[in-house]
């Protein structure tokens, strides 16, 4: 358990002792201790229904994405979850499949979901070889583990020098559902064995 987690548990326990009050989800099961056993007759018309009010509960995590399809550039790939590498970058998937950054938002949730794929391997084209061809209005579809689909529409495609990668534009939290597709592009540096730039597709939720 993390330090923060311990604080939460310890604090919650202390709080329960201090206030001696109800627990989450159970509060409506019993009458409030100080309330009269028979409430007075309603004096205004909304009281009865107000007494039955229940706040929204039942948040469920959106199912994980399992497949990516981009008809315009012939992409139809399964998706694997990616974590963080030791150097702080996102792990990269194998050549032939795309991967989604599993510590960020899931596609369709508020925030920017990020999917990475290789432009090529050492021997030839890889899953995002044609990513740079995407233009405004092109369609992207993500299928989730429960069979549901979420669609996105490309807003723009841009190339960035890796030394000036727009971290905030790609990863910073937002409450607007969005999708970012990332691969390599630009000049290839034969000394380092890496491309010098990244190609990033920015997409918004579509229909």
């Amino acid at each position, binding site marked *: 358990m993390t330090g923060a987690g311990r604080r939460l548990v310890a604090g919650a326990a202390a709080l329960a002792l201090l206030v001696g009050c109800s627990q989450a989800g159970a509060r409506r099961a019993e009458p409030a201790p100080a309330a009269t056993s028979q409430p007075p007759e309603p004096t205004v*018309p909304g009281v009865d229904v107000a007494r039955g009010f229940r706040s929204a509960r039942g948040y469920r995590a959106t199912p994980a994405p399992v497949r990516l399809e981009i008809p315009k550039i012939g992409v139809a790939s399964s998706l694997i979850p990616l974590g963080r590498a030791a150097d702080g*970058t996102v792990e990269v998937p194998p050549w032939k499949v795309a991967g989604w950054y599993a*510590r960020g938002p899931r596609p369709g949730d508020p925030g920017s979901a990020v999917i990475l794929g290789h432009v090529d391997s050492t021997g030839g084209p890889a899953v995002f070889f044609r990513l740079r061809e995407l233009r405004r209005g092109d369609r992207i579809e993500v299928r989730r583990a429960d069979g549901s689909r979420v669609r996105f529409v490309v807003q723009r495609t841009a190339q960035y020098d890796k030394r000036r990668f727009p971290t905030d534009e790609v990863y910073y*939290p937002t*409450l607007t559902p969005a999708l970012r597709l990332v691969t390599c592009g630009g000049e*290839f540096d034969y000394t380092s064995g890496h491309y010098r730039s990244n190609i990033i597709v920015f997409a918004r939720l579509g229909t």
Partner: protein
Amino acid sequence: MRSRTGLVVLVMLALGAAACDSNTANRSSSPPTTQASGHPAEHQGAAPATTPKELAAELEQYFAQHTLIAVRQMRSVLTATPDYRKAADAELQEYTEELGQVVAAAYGDAQGDRFKQIWQRGITDFSSYADAVAANDASAKQQARAALLADADAYGSWLAEASNGRAKASDAATVMRTHVEQLMAQADAYAAHDYAKAYQVEREAYEHMFTAGTSLAKASLAPKAAAAIDAPAEKLRAAFAMLLGEHMQLVIDTQRATFAGAPEFKAAAAQVNANTTALTKGMGAIVGPKKATEFEDAWAEHVEGLLDYSTAVASNDEAAKTAARQEMRGYGARLALYLSDVVRNEVPLEPLTNALGEHDQHLVDQVNAYAEKRYGEAQETEIHGYEQMLGVANTLVAAIQKTVKPQLPVGGSQTGGGGTANRRR
């Protein structure tokens, strides 16, 4: 003049933690009153916005709050509640004056005066529209509608000129036409007892004008300065402030709807729940699904405590009121603990607990005043409470940003092997 910005409250929140305890403990069921008037004390004028972000926060707050006062004023006409209408009319006048000053600070005095004239005309025309709906006078309704659309177009022309063309007249007019249509639609729905639609459109209108406030701020700035408002961190602040401020306002709606009847209560409560769901999803984007569920539980208790209290007030049940206040203190403490944990103590627990307690107190005070038909006081408390809530939102988001930033991935990805490099060049 009241404070113009939640940012001031934000600073007070951080600095005034120790004082909060005694303030809360000593507060009666009414907001603080001035000796002379017996009305709720009004804030002193805040310093003008000095940064693009402050300007955006001020205009978002003013536009959003104005929308809700106007909605409630129109409904007071439809329900023939002249005392409430009188209080709302006075508030709209004061708000227009203050908004005019904020606009003048951003666009210059002459443009501020022109803005105020257009805004004032709009308020009058909204009132006329509500009168026409209440009287079921189709001709007067049509006349007011035409006048309101003309006001929207006048706003578009004004902004295009005031911003030296940075905003297009047609775009700005479209934004204001949407606002006008929304306020008319909610009044029509309310009059037809279609409360579900009335409250849904009200929420949409609030959100629309919140973002219209952002646009108005941006149009006053040179592109480089305006870019600060478009930065991801600032967008996150605005989005959370909008939702947390909306929570405050929708709880007020729902508390008051208890006095209006079951159908209206259900409609208002549905919007509170929609806001809670949106907030939970938003938290999920930052803290992940597990902690989002914890948030939803803590938030649900908070909301239920507030509505338990207003139900007790409406029932004239003193014992239930006392029980609800006790519940609220427990729920507030739990919520503060959760939030403090999420931001890893960037905001210490005690001031956060006090700030949430103050938020609760505003909602308790406003419903007490409303139940006793002290509408001016209810409204003034509502406005204080909204400002305070935005301050809490800004503080929380600032802390969330400090927590989140170091956890973001660093730099670009190495997603190429070079096997097609020659083909690609």
